[in-house]
C-alpha cells in the first residue's frame, strides 16, 4: 500500500453568504492552486467533491471549471462527516495505486439539506439536530453530574479561539454568563451552545509518496485512518452520554498509526454542540469518562490551544461538506507550523475527529510531519 500525504490546501471564509455551490467549490480550489504553484493542475487525476447539496454532477463541474480532465471524478455525501469520508476515499484511491494526485473539495451553503435526516422517522417530529443534542446533553449531565455552566465553557473557549482564525464566522468572545443568557432553545440547550450551519468551502490535495516531494517541501502524512458506523438512526445509539463510533474509530486510527493517545499534540474534534466536545475527548481517550469538561476548563484557563485551535465548529461555523476538510487543513497547518497566532508549540502528531448524525458514524484521521 502506498503512503499518502497532504500536499496543499485552500479555504474560504465561513459566512452566511448566499452563493451558488459551484462558486464555493471553485473559490477554495482556486485559492489552493494559486497558493501552490508547484502543483500542475493537469496532473490532478482524481477530483472528489464533498457536499450535502442537492446539485448534481458537481465533481465534473468543478473539474471543467478549473480546466482539467481527471480520470476519476465524483461526489461523496455522508452528512456532517462527508469531508473526512472524502479524504478517506482519496487516501484509498492513492494507496491502491488508482490515483497519484487527488483534489478533495468540500462546500456547503447555509441552507444545507444535510441538516435534517428525513429518513429517521424513529425521531418522530423531533428530527432537527437540536433534539438529539438536547438528549445527549440531558443524558451527559445526568450521568456525570455536569452543570450547564461547565458545558458553556466549551462555547466560551471555542469562540475565543476562533478570534485567531480569520475565516471563522464568529467575530466575538463570550463569557459563561453570555452563553447561559443566550436564547433558550430547549431546557438543555442555549443558542450559543450550537454551531451554525453556514456557507463555506475547503479544498485539499492528497498525493502519493512518489509525487509528494515534487509538489511540497512540507508533506503531512496520513498515518492513521479509523471509521465506524453504528447505525443511521439516532435512537439506535447504545448510549446517549458517550460516542461509541468515535471510540472505535479512534482506536482503529491510533493502532494503524502505531500511536498512543498521549502522542497527540493537537486535535480538531467535532463540537457541533457544546456537549459534543467533552464527549469526543472522552471517546478518543484524552479525558476520563465524565471529565471532558474539566479538561476543557483547564485548556481555556491555561490558554492551551491543543483542542480545536481554529475555534471548532462552534467558533468557525459548520458548512457540513467542508467541515472535515477544514478540520484537516487546520491540523496540517499546525504540523507545518503555519497556524500563525493560533499555533500550538511544535506539534508532531495531530488528530481529526469528524462525525455524523449524533455520532451514529465517525471518522478519525491521524496526521504526522
Amino acid at each position, binding site marked *: 500500500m502506498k503512503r499518502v500525504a497532504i500536499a496543499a490546501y485552500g479555504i474560504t471564509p465561513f459566512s452566511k453568504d448566499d452563493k451558488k455551490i459551484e462558486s464555493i467549490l471553485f473559490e477554495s480550489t482556486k485559492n489552493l492552486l494559486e497558493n501552490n504553484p508547484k502543483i500542475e493542475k493537469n496532473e490532478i487525476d482524481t477530483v472528489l467533491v464533498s457536499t450535502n447539496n442537492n446539485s448534481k454532477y458537481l465533481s465534473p463541474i468543478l473539474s471543467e471549471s478549473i480546466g482539467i480532465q481527471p480520470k476519476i471524478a465524483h461526489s461523496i455525501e455522508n452528512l456532517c462527516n462527508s469531508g473526512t469520508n472524502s479524504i478517506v476515499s482519496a487516501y484509498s484511491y492513492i494507496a491502491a495505486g488508482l490515483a497519484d494526485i487527488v483534489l478533495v473539495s468540500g462546500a456547503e451553503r447555509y441552507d444545507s439539506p444535510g441538516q435534517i435526516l428525513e429518513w429517521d*422517522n*424513529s425521531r418522530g417530529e423531533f*428530527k432537527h439536530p437540536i433534539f438529539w443534542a438536547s*438528549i445527549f446533553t*440531558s443524558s451527559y449531565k445526568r450521568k456525570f453530574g455536569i452543570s450547564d455552566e461547565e458545558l458553556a465553557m466549551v462555547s466560551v473557549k471555542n469562540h475565543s479561539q476562533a478570534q485567531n482564525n480569520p475565516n471563522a464566522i464568529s467575530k466575538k468572545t463570550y463569557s459563561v454568563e453570555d452563553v447561559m443568557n443566550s436564547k433558550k432553545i430547549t*431546557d438543555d440547550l442555549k443558542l450559543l451552545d450550537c454551531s451554525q450551519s453556514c456557507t463555506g468551502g475547503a479544498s485539499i490535495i492528497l498525493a502519493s509518496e512518489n509525487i509528494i516531494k515534487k509538489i511540497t517541501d512540507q508533506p503531512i502524512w496520513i498515518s492513521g485512518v479509523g471509521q465506524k458506523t453504528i447505525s443511521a438512526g439516532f*435512537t439506535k445509539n447504545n448510549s*446517549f452520554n458517550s460516542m461509541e463510533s468515535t471510540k472505535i474509530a479512534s482506536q482503529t486510527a491510533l493502532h494503524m498509526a502505531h500511536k498512543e493517545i498521549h502522542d497527540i499534540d493537537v486535535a480538531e474534534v467535532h463540537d457541533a454542540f457544546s456537549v459534543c466536545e467533552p464527549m469526543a475527548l472522552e471517546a478518543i481517550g484524552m479525558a476520563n469518562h465524565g471529565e471532558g469538561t474539566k479538561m476543557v476548563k483547564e485548556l481555556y484557563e491555561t490558554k492551551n490551544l491543543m483542542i480545536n485551535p481554529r475555534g471548532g465548529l462552534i467558533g468557525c461555523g459548520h458548512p457540513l461538506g467542508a467541515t472535515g476538510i477544514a478540520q484537516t487543513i487546520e491540523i496540517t497547518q499546525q504540523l507545518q507550523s503555519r497556524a500563525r497566532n493560533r499555533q500550538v508549540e511544535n506539534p508532531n502528531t495531530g488528530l481529526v475527529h469528524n462525525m455524523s448524525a449524533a455520532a451514529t458514524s465517525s471518522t478519525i484521521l491521524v496526521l504526522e510531519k
Partner: protein
Amino acid sequence: MSFESEMSKGSFVIPQCSTCQKWVWPPTDYCNACFGKISLKKGDFQGRVIEFSRQNDDYFCMVEIENSFRIMAKMSDKPKIDQIVKISKCGIEDGNYYFEIN
C-alpha cells in the same frame, strides 16, 4: 395493511419477522436479520422513558418500546426516568411520524 397505513389511522403496530420472529425497527418490508417477510403485530405496547428534555411546554422523550427499540415521543406532563408509558396518539403529518405518550 402496511405500517404507514396503520400509523395514518392512529394505530401503532410493530413490524415482526414472520421467519425469525424478531421485531424489526424502523419498519421495512423485510427483516434486517434474516430477510424474512414482515407481518404487523397489534397490541397494547409498553414503553419506558430513557431520557427527556423540553422545548416550550412540551417534553420530548427517548422511549424504549417493549425493551426492544426506541422512538422519540412527545409528553405533556413532566416525565421521570424509567417511567412506564403508553403511546396515546400517533400518526403521520407532512411525511413525518409523530408519537405522543402518557
